[in-house]
Protein backbone atom coordinates (compact mmCIF):
# COMPACT_ATOMS: atom_id res chain seq x y z
CA UNK A 1 0.00 0.00 0.00
CA UNK A 2 1.15 3.52 -0.70
CA UNK A 3 2.77 5.06 2.36
CA UNK A 4 0.66 8.18 2.34
CA UNK A 5 -2.54 6.13 2.20
CA UNK A 6 -1.31 4.05 5.12
CA UNK A 7 -0.53 7.26 6.99
CA UNK A 8 -4.14 8.34 6.65
CA UNK A 9 -5.24 5.33 8.69
CA UNK A 10 -3.20 6.67 11.59
CA UNK A 11 -3.91 10.32 10.94
CA UNK A 12 -7.66 10.10 11.05
CA UNK A 13 -7.92 8.83 14.66
CA UNK A 14 -4.91 10.98 15.62
CA UNK A 15 -6.67 14.10 14.38
CA UNK A 16 -9.72 13.21 16.39
CA UNK A 17 -7.53 12.79 19.47
CA UNK A 18 -5.86 16.11 18.77
CA UNK A 19 -9.17 17.90 18.57
CA UNK A 20 -10.33 16.27 21.80
CA UNK A 21 -7.06 17.19 23.50
CA UNK A 22 -7.42 20.74 22.22
CA UNK A 23 -10.92 20.93 23.62
CA UNK A 24 -9.80 19.39 26.89
CA UNK A 25 -6.87 21.72 27.60
CA UNK A 26 -7.02 25.09 29.26
CA UNK A 27 -6.55 26.95 32.51
CA UNK A 28 -10.14 26.26 33.57
CA UNK A 29 -9.23 22.62 34.02
CA UNK A 30 -8.40 19.53 31.98
CA UNK A 31 -11.17 17.54 30.39
CA UNK A 32 -14.30 17.97 28.34
CA UNK A 33 -16.03 20.13 30.91
CA UNK A 34 -19.71 20.12 31.57
CA UNK A 35 -19.48 23.90 31.67
CA UNK A 36 -20.49 24.61 28.09
CA UNK A 37 -19.53 28.25 28.53
CA UNK A 38 -15.88 27.25 28.87
CA UNK A 39 -16.27 24.89 25.95
CA UNK A 40 -17.72 27.66 23.83
CA UNK A 41 -14.46 29.55 24.39
CA UNK A 42 -12.34 26.53 23.55
CA UNK A 43 -14.18 25.41 20.45
CA UNK A 44 -13.51 28.48 18.28
CA UNK A 45 -9.95 28.48 19.47
CA UNK A 46 -9.46 24.87 18.38
CA UNK A 47 -11.15 25.73 15.08
CA UNK A 48 -8.76 28.64 14.62
CA UNK A 49 -5.85 26.35 15.42
CA UNK A 50 -6.98 23.83 12.82
CA UNK A 51 -7.47 26.53 10.21
CA UNK A 52 -4.27 28.41 10.88
CA UNK A 53 -2.19 25.23 10.94
CA UNK A 54 -3.80 23.99 7.75
CA UNK A 55 -3.43 27.34 5.99
CA UNK A 56 0.20 27.86 6.93
CA UNK A 57 1.14 24.30 6.01
CA UNK A 58 -0.55 24.32 2.63
CA UNK A 59 0.82 27.75 1.81
CA UNK A 60 4.29 26.53 2.78
CA UNK A 61 3.97 23.42 0.62
CA UNK A 62 2.68 25.44 -2.34
CA UNK A 63 5.41 28.07 -2.04
CA UNK A 64 8.07 25.38 -1.89
CA UNK A 65 6.80 23.78 -5.08
CA UNK A 66 6.06 27.00 -6.95
CA UNK A 67 9.45 28.50 -6.16
CA UNK A 68 11.19 25.13 -6.61
CA UNK A 69 12.82 25.69 -3.25
CA UNK A 70 12.37 23.42 -0.25
CA UNK A 71 13.31 26.19 2.18
CA UNK A 72 10.54 28.51 1.07
CA UNK A 73 8.14 29.36 3.87
CA UNK A 74 5.82 32.29 4.47
CA UNK A 75 7.66 33.27 7.66
CA UNK A 76 11.18 33.00 6.25
CA UNK A 77 10.14 34.68 3.02
CA UNK A 78 8.92 37.72 4.89
CA UNK A 79 5.32 37.22 3.80
CA UNK A 80 4.21 36.86 7.40
CA UNK A 81 6.27 39.90 8.35
CA UNK A 82 4.71 41.95 5.58
CA UNK A 83 1.25 40.77 6.53
CA UNK A 84 1.95 41.57 10.18
CA UNK A 85 3.05 45.07 9.23
CA UNK A 86 -0.17 45.50 7.28
CA UNK A 87 -2.22 44.29 10.23
CA UNK A 88 -0.33 46.53 12.66
CA UNK A 89 -0.83 49.47 10.33
CA UNK A 90 -4.55 48.74 10.24
CA UNK A 91 -4.58 48.68 14.03
CA UNK A 92 -2.76 52.00 14.20
CA UNK A 93 -5.22 53.51 11.74
CA UNK A 94 -8.02 52.33 14.02
CA UNK A 95 -9.35 49.76 11.58
CA UNK A 96 -9.73 47.02 14.16
CA UNK A 97 -13.30 47.72 15.19
CA UNK A 98 -16.57 47.05 13.39
CA UNK A 99 -16.45 46.44 9.67
CA UNK A 100 -12.81 47.52 9.62
CA UNK A 101 -11.86 44.59 11.80
CA UNK A 102 -13.52 42.06 9.57
CA UNK A 103 -12.42 43.54 6.24
CA UNK A 104 -9.82 46.28 6.68
CA UNK A 105 -7.35 44.37 8.75
CA UNK A 106 -7.23 41.27 6.52
CA UNK A 107 -7.04 43.45 3.41
CA UNK A 108 -4.13 45.41 4.81
CA UNK A 109 -2.28 42.27 5.79
CA UNK A 110 -2.96 40.75 2.38
CA UNK A 111 -1.66 43.81 0.54
CA UNK A 112 1.59 43.94 2.46
CA UNK A 113 2.03 40.17 2.52
CA UNK A 114 1.80 40.21 -1.28
CA UNK A 115 4.19 43.13 -1.52
CA UNK A 116 6.73 41.24 0.60
CA UNK A 117 6.35 38.12 -1.53
CA UNK A 118 6.73 40.10 -4.74
CA UNK A 119 9.89 41.82 -3.52
CA UNK A 120 11.48 38.55 -2.39
CA UNK A 121 10.53 36.96 -5.69
CA UNK A 122 12.02 39.67 -7.85
CA UNK A 123 15.11 40.11 -5.66
CA UNK A 124 15.99 36.43 -5.68
CA UNK A 125 15.32 35.54 -9.28
CA UNK A 126 18.50 34.60 -11.11
CA UNK A 127 17.62 34.10 -14.77
CA UNK A 128 14.63 31.81 -14.63
CA UNK A 129 15.68 30.09 -11.42
CA UNK A 130 15.17 30.88 -7.77
CA UNK A 131 18.25 29.48 -6.06
CA UNK A 132 17.77 28.48 -2.43
CA UNK A 133 20.48 30.80 -1.18
CA UNK A 134 19.19 33.97 -2.82
CA UNK A 135 15.63 33.22 -1.76
CA UNK A 136 16.69 32.92 1.87
CA UNK A 137 18.86 36.02 1.64
CA UNK A 138 16.13 38.12 0.09
CA UNK A 139 13.75 36.78 2.72
CA UNK A 140 16.11 38.03 5.43
CA UNK A 141 16.35 41.43 3.78
CA UNK A 142 12.62 41.81 3.34
CA UNK A 143 12.04 40.60 6.88
CA UNK A 144 14.54 43.13 8.19
CA UNK A 145 12.81 45.88 6.25
CA UNK A 146 9.38 45.02 7.59
CA UNK A 147 10.74 44.54 11.13
CA UNK A 148 12.04 48.08 10.92
CA UNK A 149 8.67 49.33 9.72
CA UNK A 150 6.95 47.39 12.48
CA UNK A 151 9.30 48.91 15.05
CA UNK A 152 8.37 52.31 13.69
CA UNK A 153 4.70 51.48 14.21
CA UNK A 154 5.45 50.21 17.71
CA UNK A 155 7.15 53.51 18.48
CA UNK A 156 4.18 55.43 17.11
CA UNK A 157 1.60 53.24 18.80
CA UNK A 158 -0.11 54.35 21.94
CA UNK A 159 -2.75 52.11 23.34
CA UNK A 160 -2.50 49.71 20.37
CA UNK A 161 1.00 48.69 21.45
CA UNK A 162 -0.05 45.64 23.42
CA UNK A 163 -2.23 44.32 20.62
CA UNK A 164 0.55 44.83 18.09
CA UNK A 165 3.10 42.99 20.19
CA UNK A 166 0.81 40.02 20.60
CA UNK A 167 0.13 40.05 16.88
CA UNK A 168 3.86 39.74 16.28
CA UNK A 169 4.26 36.86 18.69
CA UNK A 170 1.53 34.72 17.16
CA UNK A 171 -1.33 33.91 19.48
CA UNK A 172 -4.57 32.02 19.11
CA UNK A 173 -6.02 33.71 22.18
CA UNK A 174 -7.53 36.74 20.44
CA UNK A 175 -10.60 34.83 19.38
CA UNK A 176 -13.26 35.28 22.01
CA UNK A 177 -15.16 38.32 20.84
CA UNK A 178 -18.34 37.92 18.83
CA UNK A 179 -16.81 40.01 16.06
CA UNK A 180 -13.72 37.86 15.71
CA UNK A 181 -16.07 34.98 15.03
CA UNK A 182 -17.16 36.66 11.77
CA UNK A 183 -13.55 37.07 10.83
CA UNK A 184 -13.05 33.39 11.64
CA UNK A 185 -15.72 32.41 9.11
CA UNK A 186 -14.21 34.69 6.47
CA UNK A 187 -10.77 33.24 7.05
CA UNK A 188 -12.14 29.70 7.07
CA UNK A 189 -13.66 30.31 3.66
CA UNK A 190 -10.42 31.81 2.34
CA UNK A 191 -8.28 28.97 3.64
CA UNK A 192 -10.60 26.21 2.45
CA UNK A 193 -11.02 27.72 -1.02
CA UNK A 194 -7.33 28.46 -1.47
CA UNK A 195 -6.28 25.02 -0.26
CA UNK A 196 -8.80 23.39 -2.58
CA UNK A 197 -7.46 25.47 -5.46
CA UNK A 198 -3.86 24.53 -4.67
CA UNK A 199 -4.80 20.89 -4.40
CA UNK A 200 -6.52 21.05 -7.80
CA UNK A 201 -3.23 22.38 -9.15
CA UNK A 202 -1.26 19.52 -7.62
CA UNK A 203 0.15 18.23 -10.88
CA UNK A 204 0.96 21.72 -12.08
CA UNK A 205 2.79 22.38 -8.82
CA UNK A 206 4.86 19.26 -9.51
CA UNK A 207 5.73 20.64 -12.94
CA UNK A 208 6.53 24.09 -11.57
CA UNK A 209 8.95 22.61 -9.09
CA UNK A 210 11.04 21.41 -12.06
CA UNK A 211 11.78 25.01 -12.97
CA UNK A 212 10.15 27.51 -15.29
CA UNK A 213 11.51 26.27 -18.61
CA UNK A 214 10.67 22.59 -18.21
CA UNK A 215 7.30 23.54 -16.76
CA UNK A 216 6.52 25.70 -19.78
CA UNK A 217 7.66 23.05 -22.23
CA UNK A 218 5.25 20.68 -20.48
CA UNK A 219 2.41 23.03 -21.32
CA UNK A 220 2.09 25.37 -18.31
CA UNK A 221 1.31 29.04 -18.54
CA UNK A 222 4.04 29.53 -16.01
CA UNK A 223 3.74 33.19 -15.13
CA UNK A 224 -0.03 33.14 -14.81
CA UNK A 225 -0.01 29.99 -12.72
CA UNK A 226 2.76 31.22 -10.46
CA UNK A 227 0.93 34.45 -9.82
CA UNK A 228 -2.22 32.55 -8.89
CA UNK A 229 -0.41 30.17 -6.59
CA UNK A 230 1.53 32.92 -4.85
CA UNK A 231 -1.69 34.87 -4.50
CA UNK A 232 -3.48 31.91 -2.94
CA UNK A 233 -0.58 31.33 -0.54
CA UNK A 234 -0.40 34.98 0.46
CA UNK A 235 -4.18 35.10 0.93
CA UNK A 236 -4.02 32.25 3.39
CA UNK A 237 -1.09 33.77 5.27
CA UNK A 238 -2.90 37.10 5.49
CA UNK A 239 -6.00 35.36 6.79
CA UNK A 240 -3.99 33.58 9.45
CA UNK A 241 -2.03 36.69 10.43
CA UNK A 242 -5.12 38.83 10.81
CA UNK A 243 -6.60 36.33 13.29
CA UNK A 244 -3.61 34.81 14.99
CA UNK A 245 -0.60 36.97 14.19
CA UNK A 246 2.75 35.70 13.03
CA UNK A 247 3.20 31.99 13.63
CA UNK A 248 6.55 30.89 12.31
CA UNK A 249 7.94 27.69 10.91
CA UNK A 250 4.69 25.70 10.60
CA UNK A 251 4.88 26.25 6.84
CA UNK A 252 8.42 24.93 6.80
CA UNK A 253 8.32 22.01 9.19
CA UNK A 254 5.01 20.48 8.24
CA UNK A 255 5.46 20.06 4.45
CA UNK A 256 8.86 18.51 5.10
CA UNK A 257 7.41 16.02 7.55
CA UNK A 258 4.59 15.28 5.12
CA UNK A 259 7.03 14.83 2.26
CA UNK A 260 8.87 12.15 4.22
CA UNK A 261 5.61 10.20 4.21
CA UNK A 262 4.03 11.00 0.86
CA UNK A 263 6.96 11.95 -1.34
CA UNK A 264 6.96 15.25 -3.20
CA UNK A 265 3.88 14.72 -5.39
CA UNK A 266 1.75 17.68 -4.43
CA UNK A 267 -1.62 16.03 -4.97
CA UNK A 268 -0.70 13.70 -2.08
CA UNK A 269 1.49 16.13 -0.19
CA UNK A 270 -1.02 18.95 0.16
CA UNK A 271 -3.81 17.07 1.94
CA UNK A 272 -1.28 15.43 4.21
CA UNK A 273 0.34 18.79 5.02
CA UNK A 274 -3.01 20.34 5.74
CA UNK A 275 -3.93 17.68 8.26
CA UNK A 276 -0.49 17.52 9.86
CA UNK A 277 -0.35 21.32 10.11
CA UNK A 278 -3.77 21.49 11.72
CA UNK A 279 -2.75 18.81 14.22
CA UNK A 280 0.57 20.44 15.01
CA UNK A 281 -0.87 23.86 15.73
CA UNK A 282 -3.75 22.61 17.85
CA UNK A 283 -1.30 20.52 19.90
CA UNK A 284 1.16 23.40 20.24
CA UNK A 285 -1.66 25.67 21.37
CA UNK A 286 -2.95 23.09 23.83
CA UNK A 287 0.55 23.09 25.28
CA UNK A 288 0.66 26.89 25.26
CA UNK A 289 -2.59 27.05 27.20
CA UNK A 290 -1.58 24.48 29.78
CA UNK A 291 1.98 25.24 30.83
CA UNK A 292 1.23 28.57 32.54
CA UNK A 293 -1.72 30.55 33.81
CA UNK A 294 -0.79 33.34 31.41
CA UNK A 295 -1.20 33.10 27.65
CA UNK A 296 2.03 31.78 26.16
CA UNK A 297 2.10 32.83 22.47
CA UNK A 298 1.86 29.72 20.33
CA UNK A 299 4.27 31.32 17.84
CA UNK A 300 6.98 31.01 20.46
CA UNK A 301 6.39 27.29 20.70
CA UNK A 302 6.31 26.68 16.95
CA UNK A 303 9.52 28.67 16.53
CA UNK A 304 11.21 26.74 19.33
CA UNK A 305 10.27 23.54 17.49
CA UNK A 306 10.97 24.95 14.04
CA UNK A 307 14.44 26.39 14.41
CA UNK A 308 16.19 23.10 15.26
CA UNK A 309 14.31 21.49 12.38
CA UNK A 310 15.48 24.22 10.02
CA UNK A 311 19.08 23.69 11.15
CA UNK A 312 18.69 19.98 10.52
CA UNK A 313 17.42 20.69 6.98
CA UNK A 314 20.29 23.05 6.26
CA UNK A 315 22.85 20.52 7.45
CA UNK A 316 21.30 17.76 5.40
CA UNK A 317 21.31 20.05 2.38
CA UNK A 318 24.98 20.73 2.97
CA UNK A 319 25.68 17.00 3.02
CA UNK A 320 23.88 16.30 -0.24
CA UNK A 321 25.87 19.29 -1.54
CA UNK A 322 23.64 20.72 -4.21
Amino acid at each position, binding site marked *: MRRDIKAWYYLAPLSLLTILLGLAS*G*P*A*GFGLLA*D*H*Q*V*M*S*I*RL*PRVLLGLLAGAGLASSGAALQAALGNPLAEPYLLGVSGGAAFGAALALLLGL*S*AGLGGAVGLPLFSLAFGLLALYVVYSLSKVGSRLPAETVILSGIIVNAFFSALI*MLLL*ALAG*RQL*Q*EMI*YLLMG*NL*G*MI*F*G*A*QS*LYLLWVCAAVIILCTAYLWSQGRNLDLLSLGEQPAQSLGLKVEKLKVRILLASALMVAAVVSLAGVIGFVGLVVPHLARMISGPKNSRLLPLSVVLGANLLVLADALA*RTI*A*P*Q*EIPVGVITSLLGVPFFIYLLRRKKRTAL
Partner: protein
Amino acid sequence: MKRSLYFIFLLFLLGCSAQPRPQIKGFLTITDDLGRTVSLGNAPVRIISFAPSITEMVYALGGEERIVGVTAWCNWPPQAREKTGVGDMINPNFERMVSLKPDLALMIGSAPSPLLKKFEALDIPVLCFKDETVADIQRALKVLGQVLECPSRADSLNREMDLQLAVIKTAVDQVAMEKRPKVFAELGSSPLFAAGDSSFIGQMISLAGGINITGNIPSSYAAVNPELVVKNDPGIIIVLHPQASRKEIEQRLGWQNVPAVRNGKIYPGLDQDVILRPGPRFTEGLKILHGIFYAP
Protein backbone atom coordinates in the same frame (compact mmCIF):
# COMPACT_ATOMS: atom_id res chain seq x y z
CA MET B 1 17.20 44.94 19.40
CA LYS B 2 18.74 48.01 17.85
CA ARG B 3 17.72 50.04 20.81
CA SER B 4 19.32 47.66 23.27
CA LEU B 5 22.55 47.71 21.28
CA TYR B 6 22.41 51.44 21.40
CA PHE B 7 22.03 51.34 25.14
CA ILE B 8 24.93 48.95 25.53
CA PHE B 9 27.02 51.36 23.50
CA LEU B 10 25.84 54.17 25.70
CA LEU B 11 26.68 52.26 28.87
CA PHE B 12 30.09 51.60 27.45
CA LEU B 13 30.64 55.33 26.90
CA LEU B 14 29.42 56.06 30.39
CA GLY B 15 31.80 53.46 31.78
CA CYS B 16 34.66 55.26 30.11
CA SER B 17 33.76 58.65 31.42
CA ALA B 18 32.82 57.74 34.98
CA GLN B 19 35.09 59.56 37.38
CA PRO B 20 34.73 60.17 41.09
CA ARG B 21 32.70 63.29 41.48
CA PRO B 22 33.32 65.78 44.26
CA GLN B 23 30.68 65.63 46.99
CA ILE B 24 28.64 68.80 47.03
CA LYS B 25 27.66 69.94 50.47
CA GLY B 26 24.61 72.06 50.49
CA PHE B 27 20.85 72.04 50.48
CA LEU B 28 19.92 68.39 50.94
CA THR B 29 21.26 64.85 50.77
CA ILE B 30 18.70 62.10 50.18
CA THR B 31 18.78 58.35 49.65
CA ASP B 32 16.21 57.50 47.00
CA ASP B 33 14.22 54.27 46.52
CA LEU B 34 17.05 52.70 44.54
CA GLY B 35 19.41 53.27 47.43
CA ARG B 36 21.28 56.00 45.57
CA THR B 37 22.61 58.90 47.59
CA VAL B 38 21.75 62.17 45.90
CA SER B 39 23.10 65.53 47.02
CA LEU B 40 21.41 68.75 46.01
CA GLY B 41 23.53 71.90 46.25
CA ASN B 42 20.56 74.25 46.14
CA ALA B 43 16.81 73.89 46.33
CA PRO B 44 15.82 72.70 42.84
CA VAL B 45 13.80 75.15 40.78
CA ARG B 46 13.95 73.55 37.33
CA ILE B 47 12.47 70.07 37.68
CA ILE B 48 11.56 67.55 34.98
CA SER B 49 9.00 64.96 36.01
CA PHE B 50 9.01 61.64 34.20
CA ALA B 51 5.77 60.20 35.50
CA PRO B 52 2.18 61.44 35.66
CA SER B 53 1.94 60.24 39.26
CA ILE B 54 4.99 62.28 40.27
CA THR B 55 3.70 65.33 38.41
CA GLU B 56 0.47 65.06 40.36
CA MET B 57 2.40 64.84 43.62
CA VAL B 58 4.46 67.93 42.84
CA TYR B 59 1.30 69.87 42.01
CA ALA B 60 -0.41 68.57 45.17
CA LEU B 61 2.54 69.87 47.15
CA GLY B 62 2.21 73.26 45.47
CA GLY B 63 5.50 72.92 43.58
CA GLU B 64 4.13 73.60 40.09
CA GLU B 65 6.26 76.73 39.65
CA ARG B 66 9.36 74.61 39.86
CA ILE B 67 8.37 72.15 37.10
CA VAL B 68 9.81 72.92 33.66
CA GLY B 69 9.14 69.66 31.83
CA VAL B 70 6.60 66.83 31.96
CA THR B 71 5.86 63.68 29.96
CA ALA B 72 3.29 63.33 27.26
CA TRP B 73 1.13 61.36 29.70
CA CYS B 74 1.02 64.01 32.45
CA ASN B 75 -2.59 65.12 32.13
CA TRP B 76 -3.47 66.06 35.73
CA PRO B 77 -4.04 68.67 36.88
CA PRO B 78 -5.05 70.09 33.48
CA GLN B 79 -2.55 72.95 33.83
CA ALA B 80 0.25 70.36 33.75
CA ARG B 81 -0.37 69.98 30.03
CA GLU B 82 0.84 73.51 29.46
CA LYS B 83 4.34 72.57 30.61
CA THR B 84 6.93 71.61 28.03
CA GLY B 85 6.60 67.98 26.94
CA VAL B 86 9.78 65.90 26.95
CA GLY B 87 8.45 62.61 25.58
CA ASP B 88 8.43 59.77 28.06
CA MET B 89 10.92 57.37 29.61
CA ILE B 90 10.77 55.00 26.66
CA ASN B 91 10.95 57.63 23.94
CA PRO B 92 12.65 60.57 25.64
CA ASN B 93 13.32 63.78 23.78
CA PHE B 94 16.72 64.16 25.30
CA GLU B 95 17.75 67.32 23.51
CA ARG B 96 14.72 69.17 24.70
CA MET B 97 15.33 67.95 28.24
CA VAL B 98 18.87 69.25 28.25
CA SER B 99 17.82 72.55 26.72
CA LEU B 100 15.45 73.03 29.68
CA LYS B 101 18.57 73.11 31.87
CA PRO B 102 16.98 71.02 34.62
CA ASP B 103 18.50 70.92 38.09
CA LEU B 104 16.55 67.80 39.11
CA ALA B 105 14.90 64.90 37.32
CA LEU B 106 12.20 62.83 39.00
CA MET B 107 11.76 59.29 37.71
CA ILE B 108 9.99 56.11 38.65
CA GLY B 109 11.15 52.52 38.48
CA SER B 110 12.71 49.78 40.53
CA ALA B 111 16.02 49.69 38.65
CA PRO B 112 18.25 52.37 37.13
CA SER B 113 17.00 53.15 33.64
CA PRO B 114 19.26 54.08 30.74
CA LEU B 115 17.79 57.56 30.91
CA LEU B 116 18.77 57.85 34.56
CA LYS B 117 22.35 56.99 33.68
CA LYS B 118 22.34 59.54 30.92
CA PHE B 119 21.35 62.24 33.38
CA GLU B 120 23.95 61.09 35.87
CA ALA B 121 26.56 61.37 33.16
CA LEU B 122 25.54 65.00 32.70
CA ASP B 123 25.76 65.59 36.46
CA ILE B 124 22.06 66.39 36.65
CA PRO B 125 20.69 64.96 39.92
CA VAL B 126 18.01 62.30 39.58
CA LEU B 127 15.65 60.99 42.22
CA CYS B 128 14.03 57.67 41.43
CA PHE B 129 10.86 56.52 43.19
CA LYS B 130 9.20 53.15 43.35
CA ASP B 131 5.51 53.26 42.55
CA GLU B 132 4.21 49.84 43.42
CA THR B 133 2.45 50.23 46.76
CA VAL B 134 0.60 52.73 48.88
CA ALA B 135 3.67 52.93 51.09
CA ASP B 136 5.70 53.89 48.01
CA ILE B 137 3.31 56.75 47.32
CA GLN B 138 3.50 58.07 50.84
CA ARG B 139 7.28 57.82 50.98
CA ALA B 140 7.56 59.65 47.64
CA LEU B 141 5.33 62.43 48.96
CA LYS B 142 7.51 62.73 52.05
CA VAL B 143 10.74 62.95 50.04
CA LEU B 144 9.20 65.43 47.60
CA GLY B 145 8.05 67.47 50.59
CA GLN B 146 11.66 67.83 51.64
CA VAL B 147 12.84 68.63 48.12
CA LEU B 148 10.13 71.23 47.57
CA GLU B 149 10.63 72.69 51.03
CA CYS B 150 7.13 71.95 52.25
CA PRO B 151 7.48 68.93 54.58
CA SER B 152 4.43 69.84 56.61
CA ARG B 153 2.21 69.90 53.53
CA ALA B 154 3.48 66.45 52.61
CA ASP B 155 2.74 65.24 56.12
CA SER B 156 -0.78 66.60 56.05
CA LEU B 157 -1.41 64.99 52.64
CA ASN B 158 -0.18 61.69 54.01
CA ARG B 159 -2.34 62.04 57.13
CA GLU B 160 -5.36 62.74 54.94
CA MET B 161 -4.59 59.59 52.91
CA ASP B 162 -4.24 57.52 56.09
CA LEU B 163 -7.58 58.79 57.25
CA GLN B 164 -9.40 57.92 54.05
CA LEU B 165 -7.68 54.51 53.91
CA ALA B 166 -8.81 53.85 57.45
CA VAL B 167 -12.40 54.72 56.64
CA ILE B 168 -12.51 52.25 53.77
CA LYS B 169 -10.56 49.63 55.72
CA THR B 170 -13.05 49.79 58.58
CA ALA B 171 -15.92 49.29 56.17
CA VAL B 172 -14.17 46.45 54.37
CA ASP B 173 -13.04 44.68 57.52
CA GLN B 174 -16.65 44.18 58.51
CA VAL B 175 -17.23 42.01 55.44
CA ALA B 176 -16.17 38.40 55.74
CA MET B 177 -13.67 37.26 53.10
CA GLU B 178 -16.14 34.90 51.42
CA LYS B 179 -18.72 37.65 51.13
CA ARG B 180 -16.45 40.04 49.26
CA PRO B 181 -17.24 40.43 45.56
CA LYS B 182 -15.13 38.63 42.99
CA VAL B 183 -13.74 41.18 40.56
CA PHE B 184 -12.21 40.92 37.14
CA ALA B 185 -10.17 43.97 36.15
CA GLU B 186 -9.76 44.04 32.39
CA LEU B 187 -6.75 46.03 31.18
CA GLY B 188 -6.85 45.10 27.51
CA SER B 189 -9.01 43.00 25.23
CA SER B 190 -6.80 41.76 22.43
CA PRO B 191 -5.47 39.72 23.98
CA LEU B 192 -7.31 39.78 27.25
CA PHE B 193 -5.05 41.48 29.79
CA ALA B 194 -5.37 41.11 33.53
CA ALA B 195 -3.55 42.17 36.69
CA GLY B 196 -2.01 40.05 39.43
CA ASP B 197 -2.07 40.78 43.14
CA SER B 198 1.35 42.39 43.04
CA SER B 199 0.20 45.09 40.64
CA PHE B 200 -1.04 48.44 41.93
CA ILE B 201 -4.56 47.80 40.64
CA GLY B 202 -4.43 44.39 42.34
CA GLN B 203 -3.77 46.13 45.65
CA MET B 204 -6.45 48.71 44.93
CA ILE B 205 -9.01 45.93 44.42
CA SER B 206 -8.20 44.24 47.70
CA LEU B 207 -8.05 47.57 49.59
CA ALA B 208 -11.47 48.43 48.20
CA GLY B 209 -12.75 45.10 49.48
CA GLY B 210 -12.83 43.04 46.32
CA ILE B 211 -11.21 39.76 45.40
CA ASN B 212 -9.12 39.90 42.23
CA ILE B 213 -9.95 36.71 40.34
CA THR B 214 -6.65 36.84 38.44
CA GLY B 215 -4.66 37.58 41.59
CA ASN B 216 -2.54 34.46 41.31
CA ILE B 217 -0.97 35.14 37.93
CA PRO B 218 2.76 35.16 38.54
CA SER B 219 3.51 38.62 37.17
CA SER B 220 1.96 42.03 37.78
CA TYR B 221 0.21 42.05 34.43
CA ALA B 222 -0.30 39.28 31.89
CA ALA B 223 -2.37 38.16 28.96
CA VAL B 224 -4.81 35.57 30.19
CA ASN B 225 -7.12 33.04 28.66
CA PRO B 226 -10.75 34.22 28.74
CA GLU B 227 -11.82 30.88 30.14
CA LEU B 228 -10.13 31.90 33.40
CA VAL B 229 -12.72 34.66 33.70
CA VAL B 230 -15.60 32.34 32.89
CA LYS B 231 -14.37 29.70 35.32
CA ASN B 232 -13.91 32.14 38.21
CA ASP B 233 -17.39 33.66 38.03
CA PRO B 234 -16.59 37.30 38.71
CA GLY B 235 -19.56 39.26 40.02
CA ILE B 236 -18.05 42.51 38.80
CA ILE B 237 -16.06 43.40 35.71
CA ILE B 238 -14.22 46.71 35.73
CA VAL B 239 -12.98 47.79 32.33
CA LEU B 240 -9.82 49.88 32.53
CA HIS B 241 -9.11 50.41 28.85
CA PRO B 242 -11.08 52.19 26.16
CA GLN B 243 -11.40 49.36 23.60
CA ALA B 244 -14.19 47.26 25.09
CA SER B 245 -17.75 48.40 25.50
CA ARG B 246 -20.40 46.82 27.70
CA LYS B 247 -22.09 45.44 24.60
CA GLU B 248 -18.93 43.88 23.25
CA ILE B 249 -18.27 42.17 26.57
CA GLU B 250 -21.82 40.87 26.78
CA GLN B 251 -21.47 39.31 23.34
CA ARG B 252 -18.20 37.51 24.03
CA LEU B 253 -18.30 33.80 23.38
CA GLY B 254 -19.15 31.91 26.53
CA TRP B 255 -19.44 34.95 28.80
CA GLN B 256 -23.24 34.99 28.97
CA ASN B 257 -23.37 33.07 32.25
CA VAL B 258 -20.68 35.08 34.00
CA PRO B 259 -22.51 36.63 36.99
CA ALA B 260 -21.21 40.12 36.21
CA VAL B 261 -22.59 39.85 32.67
CA ARG B 262 -25.87 38.30 33.75
CA ASN B 263 -26.44 40.99 36.35
CA GLY B 264 -25.22 43.87 34.22
CA LYS B 265 -22.30 44.57 36.59
CA ILE B 266 -19.89 45.63 33.86
CA TYR B 267 -18.21 48.98 34.46
CA PRO B 268 -16.57 50.57 31.43
CA GLY B 269 -15.70 54.24 31.24
CA LEU B 270 -14.12 54.50 34.69
CA ASP B 271 -11.59 57.23 35.37
CA GLN B 272 -8.49 55.14 34.73
CA ASP B 273 -6.15 57.86 35.91
CA VAL B 274 -7.34 57.77 39.52
CA ILE B 275 -7.67 53.99 39.64
CA LEU B 276 -4.50 52.86 37.90
CA ARG B 277 -2.14 55.72 38.74
CA PRO B 278 -0.13 55.39 41.96
CA GLY B 279 -0.44 59.11 42.70
CA PRO B 280 -1.96 61.36 45.35
CA ARG B 281 -5.49 60.86 44.02
CA PHE B 282 -5.50 57.08 44.45
CA THR B 283 -7.91 57.35 47.40
CA GLU B 284 -10.47 58.78 44.99
CA GLY B 285 -10.03 55.68 42.86
CA LEU B 286 -10.36 53.56 45.95
CA LYS B 287 -13.67 55.25 46.78
CA ILE B 288 -14.94 54.66 43.24
CA LEU B 289 -14.02 50.97 43.41
CA HIS B 290 -15.48 50.57 46.89
CA GLY B 291 -18.65 52.23 45.65
CA ILE B 292 -18.87 49.77 42.78
CA PHE B 293 -18.08 46.71 44.90
CA TYR B 294 -20.61 47.57 47.58
CA ALA B 295 -23.29 49.27 45.55
CA PRO B 296 -26.64 48.79 47.27
